[in-house]
């Protein structure tokens, strides 16, 4: 039984990095507006389908992916500005309902085109596997790990070393302060939701490498992103990443050593247990969640 452990850990980390990316994309929007986007899973789905459509039209892979990300940036920013910003001062429940409704509308639109049909995103590379001692590493896992690490590195550089990053940190520390130095906070909120949607879309495209896509894939991604965020501590970028990786590993370990049922319910169990026992999570300061 223990001989499989290294393999489970490696596969768990690879899947977990994908969850980390989705949790991070959810965190970006949350940090900007303190609103959890319950429609975010459907943005992830939309990203994967946008890439699928563009590749289907015969566009080369790289421009198709960039266009999909740009499209999702615009969609995220536009929904925030047009539908959420006007009610941002309203009751929390309205914001949660609005975000959910936007998600369902997108899911409905995808169902009109694809129904319950299962589609797969073509790979731009040959699926291959490499042996690392007794551990098998697939090309998909390497691509996911590589892309997520590159995106994380880019985010760390942008946030810590550029003027735009300084501004993002400033808004996170004090929105009113940012407004007092002349920042257009509403546009900033829109841009951050757009950035969150684009990052989520990158997650959706990578997810399309691992599992078949359906218009309902958003539920799968939202609950895992949410669980990773909760485990890592709400609003903490590093927490989102660590939470995602831990969740990925837990799914594999519980799924193998306890029961395969756990693969599907680990995210729910983690959310319930963390909220109940340790609401601030690994890196969170407090669990003041505005839904």
């Amino acid at each position, binding site marked *: 039984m223990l001989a499989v452990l290294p393999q489970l850990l490696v596969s768990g980390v690879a899947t977990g990095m994908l969850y980390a990316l989705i949790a991070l994309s959810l965190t970006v929007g949350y940090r900007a507006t303190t609103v959890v986007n319950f429609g975010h899973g459907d943005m992830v789905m939309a990203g994967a389908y946008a890439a699928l459509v563009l590749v289907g039209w015969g566009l080369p892979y790289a421009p198709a992916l960039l266009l999909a990300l740009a499209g999702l940036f615009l969609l995220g920013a536009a929904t925030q500005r047009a539908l959420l910003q006007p009610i941002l001062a309203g009751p929390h429940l309205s914001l949660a309902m609005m975000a959910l409704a936007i998600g369902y509308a997108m899911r409905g639109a995808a169902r009109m085109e694809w129904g319950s049909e299962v589609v797969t995103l073509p790979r731009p590379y040959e699926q291959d596997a490499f042996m690392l001692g007794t551990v098998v590493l697939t090309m998909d896992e390497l691509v996911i790990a590589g892309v997520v690490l590159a995106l994380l590195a880019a985010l760390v550089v942008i946030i810590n070393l550029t*003027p735009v990053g*300084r*501004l993002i*940190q*400033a808004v996170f*520390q*004090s929105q*009113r*302060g940012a*407004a*007092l*130095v*002349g*920042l*257009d*906070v*509403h546009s900033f909120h829109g841009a951050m939701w757009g950035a969150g949607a684009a990052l989520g879309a990158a997650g959706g495209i990578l997810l399309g490498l691992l599992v078949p896509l359906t218009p309902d894939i958003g539920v799968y991604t939202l609950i895992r992103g949410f669980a990773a965020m909760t485990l890592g501590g709400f609003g903490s970028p590093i927490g989102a990443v660590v939470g995602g990786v831990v969740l990925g590993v837990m799914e594999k370990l519980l799924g193998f050593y306890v029961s395969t049922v756990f693969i599907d319910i680990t995210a729910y169990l983690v959310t319930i247990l963390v909220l109940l026992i340790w609401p601030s999570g690994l890196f969170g300061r407090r669990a003041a969640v505005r839904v």
Partner: protein
Amino acid sequence: MATPDAILVARGVEAGYAKKQILFGLDFSVSRSEVVALLGANGSGKSTALNTVSGFVRPQAGSIRFEGAEIAGKAPHRIFRLGVVQVSQARDLFSEMSVEENLRLGAWVRGGEVARLLDGVYQSFPRLAERRRQMVRLMSGGEQQMVAIGRALMADPRILLLDEPSGGLAPSFVAEIAAIIKALKARGIAMLIIEQNIKLALSVADRFLILRDGRVSQQHDVKAGMREEEIVRRIYL
């Protein structure tokens, strides 16, 4: 009330929050290089007046003109770009950043020569120059107030809106803040100040307005020499 020299003119401003109206036809003006103090009891509408000028509260009626341009109801960042810069009562600093990072962000939108502006602020506040790398969260209230005023100065303001600059500060800091405001006045920066400390308000202002129930009930020249007790009586009685 508005002189030809007036840069900020408010007329019949009505504003409030949700269903509660606070300002009922506010009229006032501030001239170039003039310092005007807004006095009034709690709830008289002083902070709402300041926040309506800076755009954080949207007026329901009335006009606010800055250097001839209508600014009533414009977004805060648009009003800021014209040089109307506010220092809020809560200061709203970037607490996890250093003094210098806070100051530099103050110059972010209105541009200007950052090095020259920074030198100017450090000359006005030598204490901030000594602590330029210190994280703002670890500073005293008085020092944080200096950072807040310094950050506003980095935007090279045409008019400064100060909300309770001496609020919650130790007496030694109140004197220091008063000296700083006088120095800014000497540089010709127009200011609209809310201040509970009437002695401080009278020491820096050219004129003071008494707000009551969301409108200006009286206005006086400081030079006319009204006694402090008399002003307090007019505010509260």
